[in-house]
């Protein structure tokens, strides 16, 4: 039996992505800069993407005449969406900046109940 440190498996990847997602959440929660929040979101997205690929690699059984592809496909779409999201988000940030002359999200509380 090999040592678990040598036997890189799904668990190792999941540990890394968990750390990553925690960093992303922490970033989102602690940054007042709208772009910082965007960066946090990117971290979370990346963690999810790595998870999908890792699962695709380790856990998806090859039942259809070849190695699995679904996780990879999903990740590809994520990357596309992340790009789109970043574009929209930046547009919003710019708009916001134009209105408030700041990127401090805490100033945007006009929805306060």
């Amino acid at each position: 039996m090999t040592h678990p440190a040598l036997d890189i498996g799904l668990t190792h990847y999941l540990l890394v992505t968990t750390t990553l997602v925690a960093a992303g959440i922490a970033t989102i929660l602690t940054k007042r800069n709208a772009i910082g929040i965007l960066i946090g979101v990117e971290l979370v997205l990346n963690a999810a993407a790595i998870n999908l690929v890792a699962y695709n690699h380790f856990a998806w059984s090859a039942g259809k005449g070849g190695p699995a592809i679904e996780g990879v496909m999903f990740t590809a779409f994520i990357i596309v969406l992340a790009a789109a999201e970043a574009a929209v988000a930046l547009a919003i940030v710019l708009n916001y900046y134009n209105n408030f002359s700041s990127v401090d999200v805490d100033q945007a509380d006009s929805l306060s109940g």
Partner: protein
Amino acid sequence: MAISCTQPWWSARSPIGFLDPSRERHYSLALIGLDPIHPLQHKAAPVPTLAQLMTADPAQQGAPLLFYACATLTCLSAWAIVFSQNIVRMSVYLLLTLMGAAGFYLMLQAEFLAAVQLIVYAGGTLILIVFGIMLTNKNPEMQLRATPMELGLGALVGVGLAALLILALVHTPTPGQGFTAVPADYQQVRAIGRSLLSENLVPFELAAVLLLVVMVGAAYMARRRAG
């Protein structure tokens, strides 16, 4: 299914109980139908040497050491984002994180994705962010500090969630041995292309439309209003 139990739920539940590796557990296995091997039961194995770490791993591309290097890079830069107060540095750390992720894709035999990651993400999205920074920040060194309360809460939630997930993970026997060896003639890019044009055609087209909408919308929203 062992979830059903005859005892009342409060009895025989020591809080230390789930730290005891010798205790047989069925829960997650029952949920995903796998063999109950506790990860901590591996500790009898010998401590790995550096040579072993540098030897290629059959389960993935590259040696374990490579994995650890990528993991260190990714995690450290990701947490550096959290602790950084400078938005420009944050974006640089994000770049490092994205590169680490690309490394993982490589190791996971998703070379195409690794390339896309570097081109689209690092090359596109990140640049977009840097543009945003430049456009919104007359003083790039400006810092917006969160209050200690917010910092504490954020760290608590982030770390707490991570700790919980890790806890669950450690106690979840993972399908480590379940991957299928990739045939030598396997071309992933071909498979992706096929998939995009067959099974994933609709998402593909939708993504295209989405990108169009985003382009138009972003341009519209970001326009400088007259007056």
